[in-house]
């Protein structure tokens, strides 16, 4: 255990080394290497568990770390004269928890992929990228400063891009990968500028150093840094208006969606805000922005998830909505509640995604209208799915109930209006996941394909994830304590409202959809435009297309026409024309008539004689030529 505590960098190095090994091994060794690959997340998990046991919330705690650090080291990465850019790692309780989440989910996803990705081309590439992602995500949570964080932040983005576009022969997958990369990059610019401002103002890039220098900064500057950091977090965590990439990211393999686009990478924004909490705590304006955006995203995404027919799209909008809950909690100041929801969400949403993967694998479709009655044919998937769905809906005593209760309680204290909106969002959450559950597993089978349960490698992760999804709620007090907070007693008012809206949503969902997907038509007839707007994601893509993409493309086209083809091509082609004209002009002197050349020769001689016989002229002339 000692080495796990003293050398947490192994959690980065081992997955990275394995990634190289798997990539070099190629497709022939992949069936064997995918088992070896699981050592990577296993190491991350072990280091997380060992570190969490060794941290203490009392004693020598330096902000922004929430507990004592079990290991910390940094080194000068770039050194130019007196200037040095340091990069390093530090492990506190928050980092340790994230390591456990990343390691556990990555391990489950890799195991699930053995069955799910069987027979696919590019297995070696797939596992190498999963390992690279694990190493990058581990680096993101281990970083002791903004430099390391940013490097890892970009690396997970690159892995996300590569894995969304895993089936790069499919144009829609390639486009989705590009979209994810570009949209999150908008957020990354915000993060980068925030880091630059903070660095410029404090001269520090380490968390400890920059947080210590924070009181010396003006309030406006701290707000600017906080808001820009949130822009970065919103891009990565798919918050409005940068959420449009996540539903499209479902083009990637489903286990990837579970790992990257539900449990870990999209939660990086929440982690970032919690990690540098002093910056947010210092600015009420920033917190208001975070609360407003989070609440708005939670409610709008939940209402979109209601009308989706693709099972993965439902889960994607559900993820956006749940991340909105987390940001609302952060904006309300309840960052421990946000982290608790992050951990619980990682468990039950990874479970739901892997469950949807199992369903897709078994039934051969992603469209819930072609499913139905799968509970009889896929009992294990159905039972674990229901556990995950109930946890998401907030059924006591599952993990989601406790997490949502803490979040709602924190938001109620900060803003009753936001609390109301989140309560409505929670009702919609229960409704859409009940709809998905009923349409997928109950009723009669509507599809043509013969549905079947996957192998043990797919069922084991489902069961293993169902356990924390069901029981994590009882660890609420321990998690809050490890993060340096006081365990909160369950608020009965909030719990009552929470259970009421969950029951309402579940009952409504069951009653409406018990006879199958035709209820959608009835709802569409009743609600009309509202339903169609929801199905189209409130036209966020269309709006982004008209507001940003088209103007950008228009500017690009005019730049091409004016600057590129006009100016630069004009210069090059113009110089061609000028030299050709000059050539044609002087060409006429070259007649081939020797006697035509004679006057020039004679004139030259005359000039030479003039030079020779005029005193001083020769020296002067040679001086011009720089002798």
């Amino acid at each position, binding site marked *: 255990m000692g080495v796990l505590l003293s050398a947490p960098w192994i959690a980065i190095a081992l997955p990275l080394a394995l990634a190289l090994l798997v990539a070099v091994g190629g497709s022939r060794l992949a069936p064997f290497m995918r088992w070896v690959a699981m050592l990577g997340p296993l190491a991350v998990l072990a280091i997380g568990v060992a570190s969490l046991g060794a941290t203490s919330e009392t004693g020598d705690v330096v902000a922004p770390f929430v507990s004592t650090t079990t290991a910390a080291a940094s080194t000068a990465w770039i050194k130019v004269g007196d200037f040095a850019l340091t990069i390093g790692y530090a492990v506190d309780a928050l980092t340790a928890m994230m390591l456990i989440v990343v390691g556990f989910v990555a391990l489950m996803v890799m195991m699930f992929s053995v069955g799910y990705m069987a027979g696919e081309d590019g297995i070696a590439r797939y596992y190498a990228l999963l390992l690279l992602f694990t190493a990058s995500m581990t680096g993101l949570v281990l970083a002791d400063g903004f430099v390391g964080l940013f490097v890892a932040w970009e690396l997970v983005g690159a892995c996300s891009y590569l894995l969304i576009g895993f089936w790069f022969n499919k144009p829609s997958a390639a486009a989705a990968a590009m979209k994810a990369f570009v949209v999150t990059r908008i957020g990354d610019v915000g993060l980068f500028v925030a880091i630059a401002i903070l660095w410029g103002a404090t001269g520090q890039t380490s968390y400890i150093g920059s947080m210590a220098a924070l009181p010396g900064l003006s309030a406006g500057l701290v707000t600017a840094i906080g808001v820009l950091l949130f822009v970065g977090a919103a891009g990565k965590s798919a918050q409005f208006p940068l959420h449009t990439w996540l539903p499209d990211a479902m083009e990637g393999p489903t286990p990837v969606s579970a790992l990257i686009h539900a449990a870990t990478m999209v939660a990086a924004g929440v982690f970032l805000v919690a990690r540098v909490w002093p910056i947010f705590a210092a600015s009420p304006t920033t917190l208001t922005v975070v609360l407003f955006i989070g609440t708005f995203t939670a409610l709008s995404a939940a209402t979109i998830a209601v009308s989706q027919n693709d099972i993965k799209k439902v889960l994607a909008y559900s993820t956006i909505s749940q991340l909105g809950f987390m940001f609302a909690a952060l904006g309300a100041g309840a960052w421990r509640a946000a982290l608790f929801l992050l951990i619980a969400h990682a468990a039950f949403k990874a479970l739901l995604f892997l469950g949807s993967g199992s369903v897709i694998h078994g039934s051969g479709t992603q469209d819930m209208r072609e499913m139905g009655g799968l509970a009889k044919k896929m009992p294990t998937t159905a039972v674990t799915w229901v556990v995950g769905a109930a946890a998401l809906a907030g059924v006591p005593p599952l993990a989601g109930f406790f997490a949502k209760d803490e979040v709602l309680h924190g938001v109620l204290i900060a803003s009753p209006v936001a609390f109301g909106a989140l309560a409505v969002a929670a009702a919609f959450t229960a409704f859409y996941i009940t709809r998905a559950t009923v349409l997928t597993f109950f009723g009669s089978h509507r599809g043509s394909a013969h549905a079947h349960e996957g192998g043990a490698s797919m069922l084991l992760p489902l069961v293993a994830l169902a356990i924390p999804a069901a029981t994590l709620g009882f660890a609420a007090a321990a998690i809050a304590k490890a993060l340096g907070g006081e365990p909160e007693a369950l608020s009965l008012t909030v719990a009552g409202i929470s259970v009421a809206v969950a029951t309402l949503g579940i009952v409504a969902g069951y009653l409406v959809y018990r006879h199958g997907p035709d209820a959608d038509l009835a709802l569409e007839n009743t609600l009309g435009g509202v339903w169609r707007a929801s199905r189209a994601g409130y036209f966020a893509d269309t709006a982004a297309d008209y507001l940003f993409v088209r103007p950008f493309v228009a500017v690009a086209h005019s730049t091409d026409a004016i600057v590129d083809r006009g100016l630069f091509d004009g210069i090059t082609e113009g110089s061609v024309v000028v030299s050709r004209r000059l050539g044609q002009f002087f060409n006429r*002197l*070259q*007649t*081939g008539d*020797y*006697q035509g050349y*004679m*006057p020039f020769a004679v004139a030259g001689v005359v000039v030479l004689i003039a030079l020779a016989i005029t005193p001083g002229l020769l020296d002067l002339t040679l001086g011009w030529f720089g002798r």
Partner: protein
Amino acid sequence: MSIVVVCAALFSLGVYGVMVRRDVIGILASIEVMLGAATLQLVAFAMSSGVADGARTEAVGLVILALAATEAAIGLGLLVSVARRSGRGRLDEMAEVEG
């Protein structure tokens, strides 16, 4: 100094001939005139300066004349060969290299 004027006039006459004559034989003759002017100048300077050994300079002048004769013979030989082969005797007709 009058001998310098005579030599310059003779040389210019040669240059003029090279520039205006169209037949190659005339041009060759004009070149000989230029060479003769230069040789005359050499001998004249040797005589007037009095420093150099006059007899040696005259010997050099004779060598130049012999060279000029040789060169004229080669030039005429080439010219006859070209004329036999192509029937051309004028310089502007021989212009084959053109820009």
